[in-house]
Structures are given as C-alpha cells and as structure tokens.
C-alpha cells in the first residue's frame, strides 16, 4: 500500500526509492515540457527509449522525461546526470550515439552548446546561460518526472510539509513566512506572510486557499513550466499554506491553454491523494486538505484576484471592487488566500531551510529568487531564475547573451503588458520589486521582453495598449473608455495622424485612468505608454512633429527606394514584392513605384547588397 500514514512512513518511502536506484548509473534527462514538445522532443523521447531498451538489462541507463529545463533556445535538449553533460538541438537520429556516449562516459562534441566565442560547453555549468543563474525552484525540474511522485519524494519532497505538520504550529509557519519576507510573485509583491496572517485571523469558515495559475502575459511562461514540470512543489506549498491558515479546501485556477500543466497537475493531485498527502488525515496528522482544479477560459483579466474568484464561482470573470479584503471576504464571501504559482513554490524552501537562510538571498526589500521569461531580441531565449537584486544588464547581457545580429539594445519591457519599457540607462539598476516600481515599470509576474534598435517605442506602446484595450473587461468607465482612447491616439500617431499636444493629452488621461480604474488592469494599463514617453519622448516628437519613425517601423511613416549605386539588378526584390511595385530589367537598376508600394519591407529584407533604403 502506497498510503503514507506518518512522518516515518515518508522517510521510509524515501529510503525505499533511493534503494532501488543504482547510484552510479547515468541518467538521461529529456526536457519534455510544452516548449520541448514544440521543438520535437516527443520524437526524441521515442528514439531514446528505443535505444535504451535495446541494451542489455544490466547496462540499461535510467531515462527520465521532465518539464522545461529553462533554455528554450536549445530545445530539444538532453542532460546526462550525474555528469551534467548537456546536448542541445537533439534529433531522433542522435539517440543511439547519445546512449553509447553515456555508457562509455564520452562527450559528443557535435551536440554540445557553443557559446558566443564558439567554444564548446560540455557541461551545464559551463554554459553562460546557466552559469549566472540561481535555479532554486526551476532547477528541480531536471530531477522530477512530473508524472512520478516518487521522483519528487526522492529529492526530499513533502519533507517541508511533514516538518510543518509535526514540528511547527500554524502560527510559527506564518511567522517564518513573514520573517522570510516572501513577497507575492504574481505582480503586486504584497508580503505573503501578512496575507496569510490576516486570513488566519479572519472570521468565517471555511477558509480557502487559491493558486493563481492564470498566466496571461504575452511571452511569459514561468508558472507554466513550474506547474507542468514540478506540480508537487506547488501542491506542497499550498498544503503548508493551508495548514498555516487553517484551510481545508484549495483551488488551482489554471488556464485551459496550458493542457500539459492541467494534465500533469491532475496526475500529481491523484498521486498525492493515493499517498495520503492530500485528503483526510494527511500523513496521519489529523489535518485535512484537498485541491480542486478550475480551468480558466482565457480571459487575461481573470488573473486579477477578484475576477478569478468570480470565475471560480461560475460568474463572468470581471473584477469587483474590493475595499473589504479578500482575506476577509473572498471566494464565496469567505476568507481567501490567493497566491501565485511561484509564490507557493517558494514556501517549501522557506519551511525546509528556514527564514534566516531564505533572507540571505536577495536585496533588503525583496528576498529570494525570481523567475523571468527572457524573450524578444535576445540570443538566449529562456526561463531565467536569478536572485533578487541582480542587475538587468547581468540578465540581458550575461545570461541572455546580448542582442543578436549585431543590433544595439534599446529597451527591456518588464512586468508584462502593463509593465514599462526601460532604456539602456536603467540596465545597471538592481532588479527587485521596489526598484522597478521606482523606474515606472514593475516586477509583474516576470515577463521580460528585450527590444533592439529596430523596435519603435511608440509602436510598442500601441501594441501593449491595444492588448489591454482588448483584454479590459469593460466594466468600469476609465479602463473601458480611457484605455481605448489612448489606443486610438497611439494608432493615429503611428499612422502619421499624430497632432501637437497628443503627448500631453495622453499623459493627462493616463493619470486619470490610473487614479480611477476599478482594478489593477486599468490602474497599470498606461504604464507602457508612460514609460515610453518618459524614456523615449524624442520618438514621440519625431512621429508627431516630423512625421518620421526613427526606427523605421511604422509603415505609414517610411518610404522605400533603391539606391542605384548598390543595386546589381539581381531582381530578387522584384520577385518578392507582393504588390508588383518594383520594376527594372535584369542587371539594371530597379525602381520602386511609391504609389503601389505598401512598405511591407520584403524587398529590404531580401536585398543582399544593401541597395534598398528605408527612410
């Protein structure tokens, strides 16, 4: 029987799992999360298992498929433990040689990662992307097959829960979390311990704990990789939180666009129940708690806590004014504690290793690590976990490896669509909740979009403002009408219809939208606009006053022509042009007809002689 009825049972079970594992045998670990599968890891998985099963039984390598390893750029990737050899861009036909190399202890040079200087990095620790990170939470993904609770128990999983249940009082757990100064990773950065404390003290039963996994920021996927790669870590965090607060019922609100996360979570919850780690009388302690999954329908605003709870209750996902805190009157009007996936995942570490240890990581006001999704114009795209207080430059240049194609860095957007765009001047600022807010941006849930010099900041502001216009629920006037008007003015500016005074008008309107909106979506919606005005005002002036787009991105404000000196008459541009706007005989200078040209830039992209000029 797998049910664990006591602390001793858990320890015993861990011993049993360790005993059946051959310690010296190499383990192949394949990143098989959503990102891996998108790059073809399923085929690699099949090829690797076939290669391994064809071996003699005693020589068989251990093989584990796990969630995301963080480095999206190199998917599908295989790690060989305990050596920590890393193979990148693995194809099914590499399977046989990887298995053979793992058996003989050799390294396949052709499959290793090559850094900026083309140097081969055989080990994970040599790869610049990993070297500067502190993968406290996400690093566990490599050791855990999300479908096997044994893997999680083997790495001291549920140890923190047992420690809390049998050696700590709920008050003490809350105190530890307060002392650790764990701040909410969903965006607001509210101290989780304080929230727990007020829910614990609030009147009313039952009390609920909720995990917010409705990650909707474009380009952000931290929560997804935690939830699909290591669901038990989140479950354990929720269990500890529930014990501390005195709750017996929990919800995970996860978006339905994360099918693998939902699937892995369902399996993990079932296995935890079978093991007596969820349900009645957990580990024989007398504590009851269970978790239900609620799938979100894809509305961005449902990540807002009150809208999320409305959605769980079966109503349209619209925020409600919350002058009475969720901790007093939340889900079904009962005291509710809502935290983000990453916040919950931090909890077992704090309980296991203590608040004092946790406080050694990070800055004065922000403790612990933070996971970011590093995307955009950056060499090393991926999910990055760093200690709070690291500089943006370290993330962008050190971990991210800088900007590709010899382009210059222009801005980094932190905090998702309602965060802000920070210019190169801000790169040396330490990343923590308070510093980013001071700069007009925010930590948000951890999206980080890097933009190179070809990005037009007015267009970027327009893009995010449009996103928020479409995702606004439309309930309150400032957000519905105000953000829409901002979007319309930005549209005008990028299309050459900007007017003098637009910037001042938008600043004024933004101030009002921030002041008066009902929920955080509206209150933070003008951030991309305001930060781009603050740091890139000259681009606005260029668009409005000079009717020019300095980044040559806004099609209405550019023109294309062919430079007669450089044009060889190869006719490549002529072939590409979708509107047949280019004329010219072979080996003679070509000409663009500005009347027919739609300024799509296809000719500019294909020209090998830099003869097409964008102005």
């Amino acid at each position: 029987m797998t049910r664990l009825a006591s602390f001793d049972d858990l320890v015993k079970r861990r011993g049993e799992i360790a005993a059946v594992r051959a310690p010296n045998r190499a383990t192949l670990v394949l990143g098989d999360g959503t990102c891996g599968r998108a790059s073809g890891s399923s085929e690699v998985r099949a090829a690797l298992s076939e290669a391994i099963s064809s071996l003699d039984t005693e020589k068989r390598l251990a093989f584990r498929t796990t969630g995301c390893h963080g480095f999206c750029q190199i998917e599908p990737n295989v790690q060989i433990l305990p050596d920590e050899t890393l193979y990148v861009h693995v194809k099914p036909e590499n399977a046989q040689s990887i298995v053979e190399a793992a058996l003989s202890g050799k390294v396949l040079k052709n499959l290793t990662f090559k850094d900026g200087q083309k140097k081969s990095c055989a080990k994970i620790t040599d790869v610049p992307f990993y070297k500067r990170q502190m993968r406290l939470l996400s690093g566990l993904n490599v050791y855990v097959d999300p479908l096997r609770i044994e893997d999680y128990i083997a790495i001291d999983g549920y140890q923190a829960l047992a420690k809390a249940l049998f050696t700590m009082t709920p008050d003490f757990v809350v105190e530890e979390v307060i002392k650790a100064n764990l701040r909410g990773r969903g965006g607001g950065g509210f101290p989780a311990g304080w929230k727990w404390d007020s829910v614990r003290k609030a009147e009313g039963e039952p009390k609920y704990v909720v995990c917010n996994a409705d990650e909707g920021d474009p380009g952000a996927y931290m929560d997804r990789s935690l939830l699909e790669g290591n669901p038990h870590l989140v479950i354990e965090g929720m269990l500890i939180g529930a014990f501390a607060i005195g709750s017996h019922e929990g919800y995970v609100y996860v978006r339905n666009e994360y099918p693998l996360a939902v699937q892995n979570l369902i399996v993990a919850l079932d296995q935890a129940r079978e093991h007596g780690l969820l349900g009645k009388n957990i580990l024989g302690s007398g504590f009851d708690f269970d978790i239900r999954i609620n799938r979100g329908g894809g509305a961005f605003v449902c990540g807002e806590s009150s809208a999320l709870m409305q959605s769980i209750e079966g109503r349209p996902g619209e925020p409600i004014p919350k002058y009475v805190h969720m901790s007093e009157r939340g889900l079904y009007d009962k005291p509710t504690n809502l935290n983000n996936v990453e916040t919950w995942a931090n909890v077992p570490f704090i309980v296991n290793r203590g608040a004092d240890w946790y406080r050694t990581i990070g800055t004065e006001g922000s403790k612990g690590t933070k996971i970011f999704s590093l995307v955009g114009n950056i060499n090393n795209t991926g999910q990055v976990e760093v200690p709070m207080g690291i500089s943006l430059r370290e993330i962008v240049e050190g971990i991210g490896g800088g900007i590709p194609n010899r382009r210059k860095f222009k801005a980094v957007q932190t905090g998702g669509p309602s965060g802000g765009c920070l210019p190169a001047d801000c790169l040396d600022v330490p990343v923590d909740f308070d510093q980013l807010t001071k700069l007009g941006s925010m930590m948000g849930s951890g999206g980080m979009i890097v933009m190179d010099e070809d990005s037009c900041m007015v267009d970027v502001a327009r893009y995010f403002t449009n996103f928020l216009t479409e995702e606004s629920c439309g309930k309150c006037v400032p957000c519905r009408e105000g953000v829409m008007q901002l979007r319309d003015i930005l549209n005008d500016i990028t299309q050459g219809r900007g007017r003098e005074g637009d910037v001042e008008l938008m600043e004024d309107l933004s101030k009002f939208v921030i002041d008066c909106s009902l929920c955080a979506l509206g209150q933070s919606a003008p951030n991309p606009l305001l930060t781009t005005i603050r740091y890139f005002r000259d681009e606005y002036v260029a668009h409005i006053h000079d009717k020019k787009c300095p980044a040559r991105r806004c099609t209405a404000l550019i023109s294309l022509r062919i430079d007669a000196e450089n044009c060889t008459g190869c006719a490549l541009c002529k072939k590409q042009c979708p509107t047949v706007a280019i004329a010219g005989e072979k080996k003679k200078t070509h000409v663009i007809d500005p009347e027919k040209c739609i300024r799509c830039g296809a000719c500019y992209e294909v020209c090998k002689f830099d003869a097409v000029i964008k102005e």
Partner: protein
Amino acid sequence: MNAKEHTLTIDGRSITVKRGTFLIEACKKLCIEVPTLCHNENLKPYGVCRFCQVEVNEGKRTRLVPSCVYEIRKDGLTVTTDSERIRNNRKWLIQLLLARCDRQKDVLDFAAKHGVAPIERLTKKNDDCILCGQCVRACGEIVGVGAIGYERRGEKREVTSPYRDKNPVCIACGTCVYVCPTHCIAMTEENGVRTISRYAGEKKMIVREAKMLTCGKCGNYFLPSPVAEVFAKKMGIDPTVFTCPSCR
C-alpha cells in the same frame, strides 16, 4: 475591531453609522450630495461609473474610493467629497462618456450641467448606453428574471438579450426601461402588443413582444400578460381577471 458602530468625519462633519454602511449612504444622511451615474439604492452597489469617488483618509494614507462600494468598517475615517483631484477626475469621466455618447441627449445635458465641453481629439462612438448596468441588475435583482446581460468585453461590451434574440424569459415589465438613465431601451405598445427593444433601424434588437391583457371591466389594454401570469402565480389567482387601476 468589531464594534457595531463607527464614527467618521465627512467634509468636517461628524457622523456615527452602523458597521458596513456604504459611504455614499453616510454622505446622504448628512445631506451631502455625491453625484453618481450607476448607483441605485434599490440595487446592489456596482461601482463602475466612478463618479461618486471621494477621498478617504484611513490614518496611514489617503485614497480615492467610489463611495457607493466602500463599506465603513473602522473608526476615525476622514472623508473629503470635493477636491481638485476629484473634480479633475469627474471632468475626465464626463469627457469619456461624452466621447462615447456624443449625440445622446441625457449625456449632453449632463455634461453641460457640469460645464464640460467635449475634447475634439477623442474618438466619438455615437453610442447611447453608458453601461451603468442598472437595467441588467434591476432585471436580475428586482424582477428576478435576468433576461438581459452583457455581451463581449472591453470597448465592445454591450447590453443585450442572449444571442441578441427575443427572450421568452423576459416578462415585458419594463423595469429596465424605467431605470435606464439614457433612455436607450425602448418600450412601445401597439395593437395590444408591448415590445421591449434596443437600437433602431437595422441593428434593432427585440428583447420581447408580449400580448397585453385587457381590463376585466373597461376592456382597455393595461398589463403585459407575462406580468399578469407572474402576479397570478404569486397570489394564486386567475391571470385573466385582472382589473385596471382606473376601474378598481
């Protein structure tokens, strides 16, 4: 903490109210008028027009709150109902509604009353509904029917019947018409049929067409039959024998 009553100061005047009283009610008790567009004392507070905003000092900080949804739950609050910040915000609210409903008479009158002239730069939408939600809430909370609701979100949000179709659930009582501050729901009676509809012309959306009941005495049409059925059911009487108010 759990005292049943709390004392607060509004515009320098002191008042003691029951715990959980909404701030707007406290203002009303002191005869301080707080303008609002979505508040209706017969409906649950909604807090979307943001017009009733006031500044509340809770001790540590001053914040802007819509008074219709702010519950008084502690002692010693200091409330300011009029300030430069509030006036400026209200002006913007009117601007935005004026841009949305640039030809709607009630909105134009309201703007004129508050001395706000439209900013020409803003996009005009020629809508007639300000989405205060009183119709939807009244239909659900008071009539108990829920025949209308919202469609889509954000700037495309609209009050409609399900699938923009006739809704047999509607009892044609006209409550939505009575509560609408911008008169954008139409109610007509012709040839013994009451029609509740929204929009005109091609966009016309009929929510309900209901036969009118004739008075048992004078024979004049006076009550939509679905309403009569509801009354009859509640009172356990024959729905066909109602008498109109003038014959009673």
